[in-house]
């Protein structure tokens, strides 16, 4: 039999099995660390996605078009296309041509009063095209009673809190007053067509929706004059790219129209996302620094037990670097098995959690973050980047933790050790 020196990685791999119980504990620890990091990141991504999805989806949309001077003053006169208005149908068609844009809805805004009986509240009036708005703003799906206003009718759709303050219900007549674009005081009778409850108290108290044509009549704007087009983009993070595409497309036909992504008009959400991401890195660091010490302990023990063996190998002519490599390969093998177990443990859990986020409403209610509603569910999103980073960190941990024991193993003094000194 010819003695072929086994490659060091094979020796390392076999050494993993020398003390199975200890190896299993180490593998379990690393696998759990991987699982914890990936799940925590997934949870944090879920919370960000929840915040951004709801925050932009409830009303603003992920993309908006305004006349270039409309923001920040929101003057009623600054309509797309200026005083003459624009071809709203053509504008909507142009916007919906973009692959990321799923729906677009035109809007007119006005500030005013709603009055019922002796009660009067200040309100932001939003003129909508109900059929289109249903596909853009999630708030249109939060109706409690009644229905959305119908185009062509003097109907008003108000929030629950406003309805309470007005002591008005579905079918009641209210007066709507708003300063008109020609300086007169627009006023007319409307019927409450429905009441919504968005979950955001401020919106429920302040907003009143009416058909876009009714608001244009009230505040004396021609039918072609609109203040905003709001758009829905399914994945909010695709909105900035769509913004760039649309800006080019609008330039020639609608020169005064300016398109903005939510990252511009709700920058606080971007900041929140960045904050969460930095917290994720802290978590990765903490978890794996802890793991380093755990693995180092195991490897120190394993190499200490094998001092006589290393001494013998050295005495037989094996180089110290060979010893060092065998220990490092052992660590890599440990890391590999840990990663495989970690992945086996994590991915099904992640997939299950992603599909069926546990309802936590028994523990806490919904809350708002940067203006976006966060439902009381533990939503998890896949963090593909972090899965890779955590895998590399796990490997790195195993190798770094093995460095000191490996170097020490290579420096075992053969004669002294074999003599039992």
């Amino acid at each position, binding site marked *: 039999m010819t003695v072929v020196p086994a490659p060091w990685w094979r020796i390392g791999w076999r050494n993993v099995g020398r003390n199975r119980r200890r190896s299993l504990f180490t593998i379990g620890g690393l696998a759990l660390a991987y699982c914890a990091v990936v799940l925590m990141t997934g949870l944090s991504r879920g919370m960000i996605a929840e915040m951004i999805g709801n925050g932009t989806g409830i009303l603003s949309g992920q993309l908006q078009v305004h006349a270039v001077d409309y923001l920040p003053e929101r003057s009623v006169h600054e309509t797309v296309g200026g005083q003459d208005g624009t071809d709203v149908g053509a504008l909507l068609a142009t916007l919906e041509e973009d692959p990321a844009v799923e729906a677009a809805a035109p809007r007119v805004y006005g500030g005013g009063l709603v009055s019922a009986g*002796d009660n*009067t509240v200040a309100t932001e009036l939003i003129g909508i095209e109900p059929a289109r708005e249903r596909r853009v703003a999630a708030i249109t799906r939060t109706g409690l009673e009644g229905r959305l206003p119908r185009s062509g009718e003097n109907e008003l759709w108000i929030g629950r809190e406003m309805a309470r303050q007005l002591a008005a219900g579905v079918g009641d007549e209210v007066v709507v007053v708003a300063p008109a*674009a020609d300086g007169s005081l627009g006023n007319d009778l409307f019927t409450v067509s429905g009441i919504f409850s968005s979950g955001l108290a401020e919106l429920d108290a302040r907003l009143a929706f009416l058909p876009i044509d009714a608001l244009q009549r009230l505040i004396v704007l021609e039918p072609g004059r609109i203040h905003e087009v709001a758009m829905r983009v399914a994945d909010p993070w695709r909105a900035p790219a769509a913004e760039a595409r649309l800006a080019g497309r609008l330039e020639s036909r609608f020169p005064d129209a300016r398109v903005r992504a939510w990252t511009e008009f709700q920058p606080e959400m971007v900041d929140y996302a960045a904050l969460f991401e930095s917290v994720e890195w802290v978590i990765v660091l903490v978890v794996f620094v802890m793991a380093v010490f755990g693995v180092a302990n195991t490897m120190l023990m394993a190499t200490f037990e094998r001092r006589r063996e290393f001494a013998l190998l050295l005495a037989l002519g094996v180089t110290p670097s060979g010893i060092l490599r065998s220990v490092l390969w052992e660590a890599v093998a440990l890391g590999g098995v840990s990663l495989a177990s970690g992945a086996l443990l994590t991915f099904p859990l992640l997939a299950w959690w992603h599909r069926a986020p546990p309802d936590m409403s028994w523990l806490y209610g919904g809350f708002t973050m940067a203006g976006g509603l966060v439902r009381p569910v533990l939503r998890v999103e896949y963090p593909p980047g972090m899965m890779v980073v955590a895998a590399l960190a796990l490997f790195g941990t195993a190798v770094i933790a093995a460095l000191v024991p490996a170097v020490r193993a290579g420096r075992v003094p053969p004669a002294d050790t074999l003599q039992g000194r």
Partner: protein
Amino acid sequence: MSPTRRRTTRVLPIALALLGGAPQILRAQQETPAEIVDRVDRLLRGESSRGRVTMEIVTEHWSRTLEMQISSLGTEYALIRILSPRKDAGTATLKAGEEIWNYLPRVDRTIKLPSSLMGSSWMGSHFTNDDLVKEHRLVEDYDISIAYEGPRGGTEVWEFDLVPKPRAAVIWSRIRYRVRRQDLMPEWARFYDERDELVRTITWSDYRTTGGRLVPLAMRIQPADKPDEHTSIRYESLEFDVNLGPEDFSLRRLREGTP
């Protein structure tokens, strides 16, 4: 105050009195600044009044002229009814104490203005609803001091500094108010925000004796940040101490017509 200045202030009124000039000034010297401002208010207002006013509003986007009838009783009540243009004719505003009610003839409803809208524009003009409610409450809401007294452009004037009292619910952080000493006629008032930047200037002019009183018949309000915009009002007629009582400023009267 320097000793010289103090002597001047003491000597000046005596000298003027010896010259036989203006007993009004002598009397005013004994008054506090607040009392003077209050007296200016009373002069302008009378116990009750009724007048016809033309209001010209010029904004960046539109201009319009409103004709209206204004009645007032003391500091508590005022009723404004728009006579033209036709679109707004009949629209009326009632001020009763701190409350403002609007009557809208098109829908035949009266609406009480919520307090959150006190700072917003009245009928699209550069006047705020607050101006209607608070204009005659200077003495109650502000600490008043004299910032300058002496000649300005050949006329002896006072310039008052009005600073809100600690708990006054007002939006201005300071008002500078110039009044002519000879006849207590206001020349202008400048309104400053919390950064002490000029927000708007009200200028009075066309001082005439009408209804037995000397009053400025024209007034112009100029927002500082929009030099091309302004609101001017002009009294076409004005009577004082007319026969009006609180019952003429009821919600029923708001709906029915001008007292």
